[in-house]
């Protein structure tokens, strides 16, 4: 199980995957936006998206849980 957490304060611009999706290492899970920059958040392991904790438009803080990959 791998927890994917936010590295910075950001807005969730796009949610690319849904809970239950199979993902490969390096797949984009969500795209954040901070300071006029798009920051893709990538899966660091292959697996299934067990939990997806953010929705488009959310403001998230550094350290917030974005997704859990199992």
């Amino acid at each position: 199980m791998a927890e994917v957490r936010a590295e910075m304060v950001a807005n969730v611009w796009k949610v690319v995957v849904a809970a239950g999706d199979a993902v490969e290492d390096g797949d984009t899970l969500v795209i954040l936006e901070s300071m006029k920059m798009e920051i893709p958040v990538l899966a660091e392991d292959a697996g299934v998206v067990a939990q997806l904790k953010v929705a488009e438009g959310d403001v998230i803080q550094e350290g917030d849980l974005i997704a859990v990959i199992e």
Partner: protein
Amino acid sequence: MFDSVLIANRGEIARRIIRTVRGMGLRSVAVYSEADADLPFVREADQALPIGPANPAQSYLDQDKVLEAARDSGVGAIHPGYGFFSENADFAQAVIDDGIVWIGPSPDAIRRMGDKINARNLMEAAGVPVAAGTREPVTEPGEAVAAAERIGYPVMVKTAGGGGGIGMGVAHDEESLAKAFEQASRAAARFGGTPAILLERYIERARHVEVQILGLADGTVLALGERDCSVQRRHQKVVEESPSPGITPELRARMLAAAVRAGEAVGYRGAGTVECLVDADAQDFVFLEMNTRLQVEHPVTELVTGVDLVEAQLRIAAGQDLALDATPTGHAIEFRVYAEDPKRFFPGPGKIALWKEPTGEGVRVDSGYVEGNTVTPFYDPLMAKLCVHGATRAEALDRARAAVASFALEGPKNNLPFCAELLEHPEFVSGDYDTGLVSRMRS
């Protein structure tokens, strides 16, 4: 001369403009979003009006709110700074229609230069060299492939209406072209403006050198020297210097003359910048684009020429004649202090726990924040511009090393460690570098 100026901007540039406005004995009016209420520019203006929430679309980019603030405060002129409305011809026209002086070039000049395809064609007609590229907007991936084959790879793909490097990408083959085209199209749709894309021949190992121009009230266009902006990450500038260490006096003279022709071609008034790509080996250049506004890195030119460019903008907008001695002296370098990590350059907003700016001979800091402020994720990551001036480039580098080392900053992630690293990097120190320098430092 108008008696008051509203600054339709925020952060360091609002503060910078307020300094000159007040220095000229004029009244300064700031507008600010909820996220910026604690920033120094709000306090330092003679009057400050709240214009809405943090989201720029509902505050700094809300034309009605900005114009309403201008009417309420009864200002005589509006300075747009850079970004936001600075290159928006419709906003400029709305300001003028309201009977307020627009501190910038005419809406017509903004429009003609704002579309990069149109600007390229216009410059070619005015005898300014341009890179091989598309003369018509490219809207379909198939057209892009055909154009790239005609131009020859590698090609630069960019949005006709975009700025600040957003959506730009280099394609080396058909496969990477599809990706770059998709990225540019997405940026064009997202950041507004025209959906048109253009392709240009990409020059590897190029330097990015730009010429500061000033169109005077009487129609004369002056060139105030160049700035070398080749230290870039993600096609965005990090460090700028003048004079450029990579061009000969002969090339400089040709570039300055071409920049004057570019300004004359659109009847340019006020401060503007003609951006070029320089092939340092061949000592040749091509026109890249024109920015019809004050540039972030304008202090570099101010430090070598002694000209206050904001004051010049105000006087030109008021129709006054200028007696300028813009003979450059010495060497100036600007470092953009960004709220971003110094390795991958990802944003790092946060609360500023410690902030002590360096001081000393030849040091100038234009900053948007003080200790205790929070750098929020809503706007660009520029916190401050650390600028140095010295009699020679070597002296400027020494002063920069001391200034970077004594800048005490804690809280947001920041790129001061990158600036220190750059100042020891043999390529940068030698002056023989190009726009690929930062990528090479991080590969």
